[in-house]
């Protein structure tokens, strides 16, 4: 494994320098809590869109999409594109006017100050429902964002160690092997914290746009070279065996297809319509029109991003698997033996996807007798395979950028939610703005420390890694149901929402505790109460849990709402879609957001059809 050349390190350094530059140049503008937590609500839509994309491409997503390509084949493009794009368009068309709030109202009644411009999703819940719902969601969200940032640090830290990126630095510091992993997690986290402290959400968004461009710039040459290596598009089609997802859906029948579509919509909605880590970028837009366009711009680019991130996995499995080889050649009577030693775990893999290695470096065997593959390594291994020194540095920069974009989104959203929805709402109601600014900065420090703690815990207990799907189902899926009811149904009440959130979370935990994917041990992967049924795979368990949490939460919230007292109509102005001022239609019909959304959706479907 090569150490990084000087050029590679130079590119990494340039990137690190620019990350901090954004922080330093925004520092003078950070004079108020609003500037820090909402970037002054003055961002153009394209920057918000790019920042949403950058935030959505955390390390799990980048590694996960490559893994899905290697594991499930071409159809994963359709799954990722069609699972997210409808939700993004929906968020842009119908949810942003409600979440962004105030401005559209303020236009109509300028004498009434915008008292209810929600700064965060929990704050929206507080305005729409009540304080207990707000606190419950704020607590759950803060825990989730710190935890998932920790898992992201650990996931990418492991890859950095496998790629020996920090070996030189660790070598000069004389660190033990475990110390290298800690360094690989601490260094990006510290850099993120530095620019967030300096420039708040604004710096995070500027950097996310930068990071998004770097991810594409770093991965695209590898994808192009990989495609060329296996003979272009037709070569790829010919090389791919009939893929697993297709075989699975065929054997399960139409029910599975409906299930997959439904689950895709729930997962996409729970991410793009619900997750404040992504929505914070759109909520920092300069006006409601820009806020509506932001998720759509992200959606338009998303199809392309999904393809660039999934193709490495597709190509990685079909390339020849490296084997230990001895080449003997005779040079003027001197016999040379050229031995290329390949670790057994790599040899047992499929293509460039290695098998998971146990402590002795031997390949681990799965339940079916085949080696268990470490799919997460497919994209990093592709980078090593195709990029020469120089471009390799850019590829590593892309990995680092993706990690930092995701972690920064978690840190800023954690800071905002803690400051607005826990500190200001419950601890110090009349806190001065200066104090809020200070609290927001300290909350960012706290968020990074919690995330780092979670990363260390994941290092100690590897199985925490698998808990991320469960955490998502417990927090985001019920919240999606409650937000849908809150934004579109006037009759939904605070008690209903509170009960819905709790019931949904409980249902997710219960389902996870009672189901176990085939060939797994009971524990963090499911079945820790009793094993009642066996979903086909981890993916099926995760989808099922999220879907159930969503449905239970929807039903419970609706039922309890009907039995409790409804809120007054006046109190819901601007908080429910039907009581929100419509942005007035300006310009020709084809230039309006609705037309834009329809065009993006059609394009996404067309691209997905090519891949199915």
């Amino acid at each position, binding site marked *: 494994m090569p150490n990084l050349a000087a050029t590679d390190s130079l590119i990494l350094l340039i990137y690190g320098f620019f990350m901090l530059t954004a922080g330093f140049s925004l520092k003078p503008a950070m004079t108020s809590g609003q500037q820090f937590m909402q970037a002054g609500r*003055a961002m153009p839509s394209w920057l918000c869109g790019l920042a949403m994309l950058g935030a959505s491409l955390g390390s799990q997503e980048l590694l996960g999409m490559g893994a899905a390509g290697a594991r499930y084949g071409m159809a994963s493009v359709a799954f990722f594109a069609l699972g997210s794009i409808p939700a993004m368009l929906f968020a842009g068309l119908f949810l942003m006017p409600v979440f962004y709030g105030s401005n559209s109202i303020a236009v109509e009644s300028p004498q009434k100050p915008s008292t209810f411009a929600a700064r965060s999703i929990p704050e929206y819940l507080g305005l729409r429902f009540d304080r207990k719902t707000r606190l419950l969601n704020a607590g759950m969200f803060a825990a989730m964002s710190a935890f998932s940032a920790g898992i992201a640090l650990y996931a990418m830290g492991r890859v950095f160690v496998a790629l020996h990126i920090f070996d030189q630095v660790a070598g000069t510091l004389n660190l033990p092997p475990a110390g290298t992993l800690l360094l690989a997690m601490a260094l990006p986290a510290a850099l993120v914290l530095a620019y967030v402290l300096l420039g708040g959400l604004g710096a995070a968004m500027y950097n996310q746009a930068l990071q998004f461009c770097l991810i594409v710039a770093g991965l695209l040459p590898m994808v192009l070279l990989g495609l060329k290596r296996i003979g272009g598009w037709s070569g790829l089609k010919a090389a791919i065996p009939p893929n697993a997802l297709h075989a699975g859906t065929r054997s399960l029948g139409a029910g599975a297809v409906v299930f997959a579509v439904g689950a895709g919509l729930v997962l996409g909605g729970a991410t793009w319509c619900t997750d404040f880590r992504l929505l914070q970028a759109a909520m920092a837009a300069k006006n409601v029109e820009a806020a509506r366009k932001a998720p759509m711009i992200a959606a338009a680019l998303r199809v392309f991003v999904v393809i660039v991130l999934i193709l490495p996995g597709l190509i990685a499995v079909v390339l020849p698997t490296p084997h230990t080889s001895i080449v003997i050649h005779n040079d003027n009577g001197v016999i040379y033996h050229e031995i290329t030693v390949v670790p057994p775990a790599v040899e047992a893999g499929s293509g460039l996807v290695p098998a998971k290695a146990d402590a002795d470096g031997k390949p681990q065997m799965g339940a079916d007798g085949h080696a268990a593959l470490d799919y997460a390594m497919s994209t990093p291994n592709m980078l090593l395979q195709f990029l*020469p020194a120089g471009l390799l540095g850019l590829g590593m920069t892309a990995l680092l950028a993706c990690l930092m974009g995701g972690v920064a989104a978690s840190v800023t959203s954690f800071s905002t939610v803690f400051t607005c929805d826990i500190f200001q709402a419950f601890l110090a109601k009349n806190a001065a703005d200066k104090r809020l600014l200070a609290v927001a900065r300290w909350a960012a420090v706290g968020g990074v420390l919690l995330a780092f703690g979670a990363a260390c815990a994941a290092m100690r207990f590897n199985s925490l890694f698998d808990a991320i799907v469960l955490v998502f189902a417990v927090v985001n899926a019920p919240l999606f149901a409650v937000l849908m009811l809150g934004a579109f149904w006037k009759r939904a009440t605070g008690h209903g929402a509170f009960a819905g959130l709790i019931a949904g979370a409980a249902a997710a935990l219960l389902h996870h505790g009672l189901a176990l994917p085939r060939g797994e041990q009971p524990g963090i992967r499911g079945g820790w109460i009793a094993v009642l049924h066996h979903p086909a795979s981890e993916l099926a368990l995760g989808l099922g849990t999220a879907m159930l949490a969503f449905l239970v939460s929807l039903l419970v919230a609706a039922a309890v709402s009907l039995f409790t007292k409804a809120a007054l109509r006046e109190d819901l102005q601007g908080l429910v879609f039907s009581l929100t001022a419509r942005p007035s239609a300006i310009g020709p019909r084809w230039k309006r957001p609705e037309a834009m959304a329809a065009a993006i959706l059609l394009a996404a479907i067309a691209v997905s059809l090519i891949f199915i």
Partner: protein
Amino acid sequence: MFYDPRISLGMLFTLIGTVLTAFGVATRSNADMYAKSLGIDANLWWGLVLLVFGIAALVLGRRGQIKLEKK
């Protein structure tokens, strides 16, 4: 908006593009190094692509910045 982000984007990519292009030119004859990238001097070509992208972003960003300051 604080400043036009295309300026920093342009500066970053112009810089990286220049480094890659220069490195690509310097190592053009090194066939061993480019065996990985199928014999293509990927540094040179991709460096040029990034350089063009960076300069375009820089030009657009400059214009955007002037508009921003007029407001």
